[in-house]
């Protein structure tokens, strides 16, 4: 089959590799119809995630049709068109019993801090991902969701990660009616977090980024205020001026470890690897939120440590909440939102690229060329 193949930092290609096989009685093999490149794939692409091995196939946002099922699969049948949450989870461990599907303890031998994730290095379990013609889907009875007939495939593929992650970012902010919410990052997750903040009753939503085209997009998509941090001397002062000098009720970090905005953070975190990436968005979030406010983190960071003002978080009495999204928990309501027309996730898709051109697709997304917001890869024979 044709699959994306990682060759090293900033180098990927499409090439043939053996088809995946059933390896566990509850596996399914899925023929991929849509896969996306996620912002967090760029951390792998840039060589920032430890134990990212040459030859691996990335891709944790995908839909497809079931081609084959293992002997114990009861809830899926060949031909079902499914969306597959990025979490690989068992449904029965201590954490899954608490609906913490992103923290499953039975699907990732290589690390205990995170559950299994498709195509996300061996630090997340060593699974090949969905940027391919076929993919092995473990725990097929609990992970995949059959796509409702009235759901567009482009909306469905965004339900596998980006939209639920943005929604959970807002949910973890514990937004009260009328709250001011600041979202750092106008990438796909930040865009969905901003829209979700309104659904949860925010009174004001402000999105911060430095890419003008993304800020323009989110302003229209999520009807929010925007701030270009390049136009701002000091982010904390700017947000305080916008909020009667108190600070925002809720700040959301939807950027993670490659944030722009601080030379020192970029040098120490991204270039010199002295910390687990650049944490300037989180730094701003902590310093821009009001005392007693909530900081919600869905931006991805490396497994070591980061320089953040934790003393300020203590002194301000902040609540910090963070996690990988528990996608399956959110799906019923998020599907309802799409069906009710409250949100059209597919509007964020700017690029549709054949899998054969995966090298160009990664470069366009990584370098933010051609006003790219979200890229969908189309496998051969998948149709458009």
């Amino acid at each position: 089959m044709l699959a994306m193949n990682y060759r090293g930092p900033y180098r990927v290609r499409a090439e043939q590799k053996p088809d995946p096989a059933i390896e566990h009685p509850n596996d399914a093999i899925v023929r991929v119809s849509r896969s996306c490149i996620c912002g967090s794939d760029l951390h792998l692409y840039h060589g920032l995630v430890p134990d990212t091995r040459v030859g691996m196939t990335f891709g944790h946002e995908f839909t497809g049709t079931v081609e084959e099922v293992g002997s114990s699969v009861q809830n899926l049948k060949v031909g079902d068109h499914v969306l597959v949450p990025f979490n690989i989870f068992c449904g029965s461990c201590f954490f899954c019993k608490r609906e913490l599907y992103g923290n499953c303890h039975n699907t990732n031998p290589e690390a205990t801090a995170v559950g299994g994730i498709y195509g996300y290095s061996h630090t997340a379990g060593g699974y090949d991902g969905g940027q391919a013609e076929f993919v092995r889907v473990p725990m097929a009875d609990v992970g995949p969701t059959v796509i409702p007939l009235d759901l567009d495939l482009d909306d469905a593929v965004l339900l596998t990660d980006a939209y639920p992650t943005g929604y959970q970012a807002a949910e973890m902010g514990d937004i009260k009616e009328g709250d001011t919410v600041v979202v750092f990052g106008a990438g796909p997750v930040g865009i969905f977090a901003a829209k979700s903040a309104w659904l949860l009753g925010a009174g004001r939503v402000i999105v911060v980024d430095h890419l003008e085209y993304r800020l323009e997009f989110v302003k229209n998509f999520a009807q929010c205020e925007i701030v270009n941090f390049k136009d701002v001397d000091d982010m904390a002062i700017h947000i305080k001026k916008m909020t009667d000098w108190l600070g925002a009720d809720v700040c959301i970090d939807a950027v993670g470890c490659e944030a722009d905005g601080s030379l020192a953070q970029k040098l120490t975190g991204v270039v010199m690897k002295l910390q687990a990436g650049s944490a300037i968005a989180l730094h701003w979030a902590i310093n821009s939120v009001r005392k007693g406010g909530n900081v919600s983190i869905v931006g991805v960071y490396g497994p070591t440590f980061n320089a953040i003002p934790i003393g300020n978080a203590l002194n301000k009495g902040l609540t910090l909440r963070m996690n990988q999204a528990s996608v399956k928990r959110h799906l019923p309501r998020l599907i309802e939102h799409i069906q009710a027309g409250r949100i059209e996730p597919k509007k964020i898709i700017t690029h549709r690229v054949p899998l054969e051109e995966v090298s160009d697709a990664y470069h366009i997304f990584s370098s933010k060329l051609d006003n790219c917001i979200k890229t969908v890869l189309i496998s051969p024979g998948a149709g458009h």
Partner: protein
Amino acid sequence: MKTEKDYSHIHGWGADLDPKNRPAYPKERMPARLSGVHWDQPEQQEQKVEILHSNERPDITPIFGTSTPPSGLSGTIREAAFKYSENDIRHWLLLLLADRINVWEGLAGDLNKGHIPHILDEMGWKAEWKYNRPGAIRKLAIGSALLGTAICLMKRKRRRELQ
């Protein structure tokens, strides 16, 4: 929904304000609202390739990925890394070192199979040329200047050694 402020221009505003509208509320509910689980503990997947496991757990997990098993020098370094816990910075630094060595192993593997990798293509240079031509030209110029300088310095060193 009636509110003090008018949010009617924001489609869907407050749809999830009342937790009763949210089937996923509250977070971390027990028992989980998940159907399809027909096991207490998943069956153990058969291990056919080397799987490294964190020493913060007793053994491998019932389910695991089998992509790209450890091999070569990078594999040996990865094995060494897993002697340290996730709590130990040496674990992560060794894995990053292994990743970098693995890149060279990948290049050697390509050449060994008679495949010369198109590194510029793999880096998406076609897209760079199409969408950011001035940037591509600038990068090529800087790259050429650095390469030229390196060659000159090497030649000068060689001349000095011969003298």
